[in-house]
């Protein structure tokens, strides 16, 4: 019983650090990547997994108590809604005439927006 708690505590801290590291890398991605579309890659993928990791760590720390269940629900909703937000931001940016950065190699998106 005690051993399980120690193992869970260890994994909880490990996932918390991993999640925070991913959040940090997401922020670094926003600063370093060249244009809005590439920055969306950083925020949707890395940011989502980082936040999900923090929520999972809360679940591991407190178990299936009301707080833990709420945390994991928030995490699942993040996974579900982040792609939709990225999709809308990218679409709006392209329709407002935000060009792809100079190193882009191909753009097959129909500019007429029927």
């Amino acid at each position: 019983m005690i051993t399980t708690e120690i193992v869970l505590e260890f994994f909880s801290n490990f996932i918390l650090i991993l999640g925070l590291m991913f959040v940090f890398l997401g922020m670094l991605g926003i600063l370093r990547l060249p244009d809005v579309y590439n920055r969306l890659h950083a925020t949707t993928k890395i940011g989502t997994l980082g936040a999900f990791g923090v929520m999972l760590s809360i679940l591991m720390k407190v178990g299936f108590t009301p707080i833990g269940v709420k945390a994991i629900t928030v995490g699942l909703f993040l996974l579900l809604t982040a792609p939709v937000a990225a999709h809308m931001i990218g679409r709006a940016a392209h329709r407002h005439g935000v060009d792809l950065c100079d190193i882009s190699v191909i753009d097959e998106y129909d500019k007429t927006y029927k």
Partner: protein
Amino acid sequence: MKRYLFYSIPLALMWCFVHGSVTIENFIFGMILGPIALRPFMPLFKVGGELSFKDAIVRIPKQAKYFAILIIEILKANIMVARIVISPNIDIKPGIIAVPIDTKTNGGITAIANTITLTPGTLTIDISDDRSVLYVHCIDASDPDGVRTSIKNDLEKYVLEAFE
């Protein structure tokens, strides 16, 4: 009526999770709230065809397989983007690629668009008017045909099995 009942079950479960404890009282209260929450959005759910509880249960193993693959792909995507972000020189060839899809239903298209966004190096930007082409932003678009075949063979197969 059956449709309302069908969609209320997941909403009631969700209510239990948001409340924090799965009890029969919470579930019943969620079932009462479900139809009220569904009412304004019901016109969007003109899926066509008859819904059946049996059909939904048959799909559960396939959906479980799909989610397992999705989790692996998400982890791969994160490691890939993280490596690009921390590399000293950012060496990428981004671009937008048109990817034709076979999926027809609204649920299937939503699933594949979200899956593409969460998988390595790709991000769905828009869908064409006739719902046959997805515009996908790729962080490495030097090989457009390779991206098209990898989406078709690796992802769409599982999405079609799980959601159509």
